[in-house]
């Protein structure tokens, strides 16, 4: 950190080189239609947007009285009277300066009184730019948006909420992000000083330790008691959140600190240098290279590994050096599925050395537990297979929630960030490769090219089955979607696991941003808001974002679509609407069969979402999102998607409800 150890000046003394004067900004923003859409959409502002934004409450110009407030004592007030009623230099203005210095571009929020000071600073002192507030209708939605945004942009988003009821609402999405190693900075409003609380709600919305509710699944938190303390805690929070394994952090914003006069304290801002990801031990990496070179059938398995395209390319370099197949578990887009070394999970069964990279579950790669009365485990890998594990799991974890999975004693365990360690490993492989080993690469390549080609042909063949079925098959859903996205710079912002992985099987995925993995904790309510957060990041790059949305998941956080419409976040959402909680049906079916009671119509109880059927397109429409459906005839799907794509091309979200096969 580089302290900028200067006094934090009063408003009249502050220079604003990096900030447009807020009054000038607001005037120009109204004219250009920027205030509600953010800078990323500035060039695309339509006449409609400009007209709408002229009415946006966040862009109102200051009144004459407000202008006078900033420079002089209002008429009729003595200096003492003015001190009683007006704040010239509120603490939350400094809080915003800190946030801006740390580079947060967006803050997702559902407004609340415990952080009204900071909210006012953001919209008036900061002009609602960098950070821009994203209006959310639920804190779970806000946190999930931050989750999705990070996985595309690589940047943390702020989540501003009540320390009590807000964090409680946000907790599910925070847990997903924790499991998925997605950083975010939770800013939690709280009033610690009891004698200054207003009676009633302000007491209900205060806590001695408000972060306690989520502390089991965040990396760090603090409750600063001064503005300087806050500045240092925010800088620390950012560093900790971004250091692998990345994860959420929380800083409590005391209400009094926000709202009271900061005065002329000497306050320091910090420019934070985020930690470089740690690499594995050099000697251990060299040993890993020896094992991989000695192996007859090395296999690489990658899960939460690549942070960006560089990570993908590093893995391609290692795989090609070894001519070793890569099993991409798609926690992130680690490896192009178009590459001949991209192989299915069965490759692990014949491996004599398995290299695991940032595996969510090492044990589960090597073994499986059979879901039957006696839950015995079976080893999937060869008995003599050796396992090398490179990852940051052991660098930080917590004990209560068990998302760390069953323990597996890897034969060679290297603590370090896998993406950062890959160049060292690849260099060691290339430098240690003898001519005899190198000579085997051609045969290995031929083998895997053939296997890849066969798998590709098999996927296309399988996609034919149920092609004309109604409800629509999930294979056809993705095939029709491909026709829409194939000539665009596309990105899928959802996980296709519930749709029989048809995106991964059919679509050529070779860019890191084209696939963002899964929710992490499998907590429902992730899909829509995470997709919208990801789409926000794609908007800045002009990409066409697609979300295949599960119906049951959508019912947790449907309000996210209002946010997409309000902030004009272009996103094509297509439902995988199987009218039920299908995973749970299968559990019920297994229990009924195990107890020899039969399933018949009992599967409906607790699982189906029918009678009444949910009209999702009308629901989307009610929130200002263009909607169509339900589509039941597969031949109607392509034209509906084409119409929706036109809306998205125009910079708006669109929604197509499709009644689909269960999986």
């Amino acid at each position, binding site marked *: 950190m580089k302290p900028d150890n200067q006094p934090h000046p009063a408003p009249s003394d502050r220079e604003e080189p990096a900030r447009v004067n807020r009054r000038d900004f607001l005037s120009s923003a109204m004219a250009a239609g920027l205030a509600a859409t953010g800078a990323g959409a500035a060039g695309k502002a339509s006449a409609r947007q400009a007209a709408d934004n002229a009415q946006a409450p966040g862009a109102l110009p200051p009144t004459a009285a407000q202008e006078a407030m900033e420079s002089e004592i209002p008429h009729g007030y003595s200096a003492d009277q003015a001190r009683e009623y007006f704040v010239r230099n509120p603490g939350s203005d400094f809080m915003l300066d800190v946030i801006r210095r740390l580079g947060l571009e967006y803050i997702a929020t559902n407004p609340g009184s415990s952080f009204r000071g900071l909210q006012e600073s953001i919209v008036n002192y900061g002009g609602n730019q960098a950070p821009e507030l994203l209006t959310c209708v639920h804190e779970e939605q806000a946190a999930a948006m931050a989750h999705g945004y990070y996985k595309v942009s690589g940047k943390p988003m702020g989540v501003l909420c009540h320390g009590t009821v807000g964090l409680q609402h946000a907790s599910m999405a925070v847990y997903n992000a924790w499991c998925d190693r997605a950083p975010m900075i939770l800013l939690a409003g709280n009033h610690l000083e009891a004698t200054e609380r207003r009676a009633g709600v302000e007491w209900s919305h205060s806590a001695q330790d408000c972060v306690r509710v989520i502390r089991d699944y965040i990396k760090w938190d603090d409750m600063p008691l001064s503005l300087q303390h806050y500045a240092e805690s925010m800088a620390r929070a950012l560093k900790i959140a971004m250091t692998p394994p990345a994860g959420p952090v929380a800083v409590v914003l005391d209400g009094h600190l926000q709202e009271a006069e900061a005065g002329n304290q000497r306050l320091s801002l910090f420019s934070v240098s985020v930690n470089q990801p740690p690499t594995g031990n050099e000697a251990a990496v060299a040993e890993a290279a020896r094992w991989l070179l000695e192996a007859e059938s090395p296999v690489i398995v990658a899960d939460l590994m690549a942070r960006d395209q560089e990570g993908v390319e590093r893995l391609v370099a290692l795989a090609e050096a070894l001519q070793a197949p890569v099993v991409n578990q798609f926690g992130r887009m680690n490896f192009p599925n178009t590459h001949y070394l991209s192989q*299915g*999970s*069965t490759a692990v*069964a014949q491996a004599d050395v398995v290299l695991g990279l940032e595996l969510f579950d090492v044990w589960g790669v090597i073994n499986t537990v*059979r*879901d*039957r009365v006696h839950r015995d485990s079976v080893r999937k890998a060869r008995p003599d297979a050796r396992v090398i594990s490179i990852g940051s799991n052991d660098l930080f974890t917590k004990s209560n929630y068990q998302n760390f999975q069953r323990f597996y004693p890897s034969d060679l365990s290297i603590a370090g960030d896998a993406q950062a360690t890959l160049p060292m490993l690849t260099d060691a492989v290339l430098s240690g490769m003898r001519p005899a080993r190198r000579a085997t690469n051609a045969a290995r390549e031929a083998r895997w090219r053939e296997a890849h080609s066969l798998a590709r042909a098999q996927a*296309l*063949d*399988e*996609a*034919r*089955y*149920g*092609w*004309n*079925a109604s*409800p629509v*098959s*999930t*294979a*056809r859903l993705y*095939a*029709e979607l*491909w*026709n829409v996205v194939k000539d665009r710079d596309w990105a899928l912002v959802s996980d296709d*696991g*519930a*749709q*029989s*992985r048809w995106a991964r099987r*059919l679509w*050529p995925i070779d860019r890191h941003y084209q696939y963002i993995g899964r929710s992490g904790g499998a907590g429902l309510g992730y899909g829509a808001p995470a997709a919208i957060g990801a789409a926000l990041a794609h908007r800045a790059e002009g990409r066409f974002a697609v979300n295949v949305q599960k119906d049951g998941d959508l019912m947790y956080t449907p309000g996210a679509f209002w946010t997409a419409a309000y902030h004009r976040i272009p996103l094509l959402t297509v439902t995988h609407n199987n009218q039920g909680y*299908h995973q749970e*049906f*299968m559990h019920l*079916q*297994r229990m*009924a*069969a*195990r107890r*020899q*009671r*039969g*399933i*018949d*119509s009992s*599967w409906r109880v607790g699982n189906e979402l029918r009678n009444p059927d949910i009209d999702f397109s009308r629901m989307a429409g009610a929130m200002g999102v263009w909607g169509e459906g339900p589509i039941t005839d597969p031949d109607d799907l*392509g034209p509906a998607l084409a119409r929706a794509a036109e809306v998205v091309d125009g910079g708006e979200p669109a929604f197509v409800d499709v009644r689909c*096969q*269960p*999986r």
Partner: protein
Amino acid sequence: MSAFSRIAQSPGLAVPVLLLWTLGWALASAEEPADDVRKGRALYVSQQCWQCHGHEGQGGVAGNRIAPTRYPYEAFARLVRFTNLMPAYSPKVLSDEQLRLIYAYVRSMPEPPPLEEIPELDFD
């Protein structure tokens, strides 16, 4: 992993199923009686086979493709009764006759259109 390869990795099932598979490939071409197919379809729906195997038997991540099946009845029945791949339906909840009718329906399911007739699957 296909059903066939999973079975092949299960020592107790591999040999008999492989034999039956081979035998059934040759025999499974006879037309099923229309009434059996109709009754079998009703059972396929009521017994929720479609939940994992799809309305057209196309399968997916939750269950293997089963249509049009090339399993002989004996292999088909064994997979339904004794398997780690799906809930084991015993004769108590699904009689032999019901299973036979479901088999008749699954066998009657038509082949999908050839790949050349589906332009949406032309990814080249």
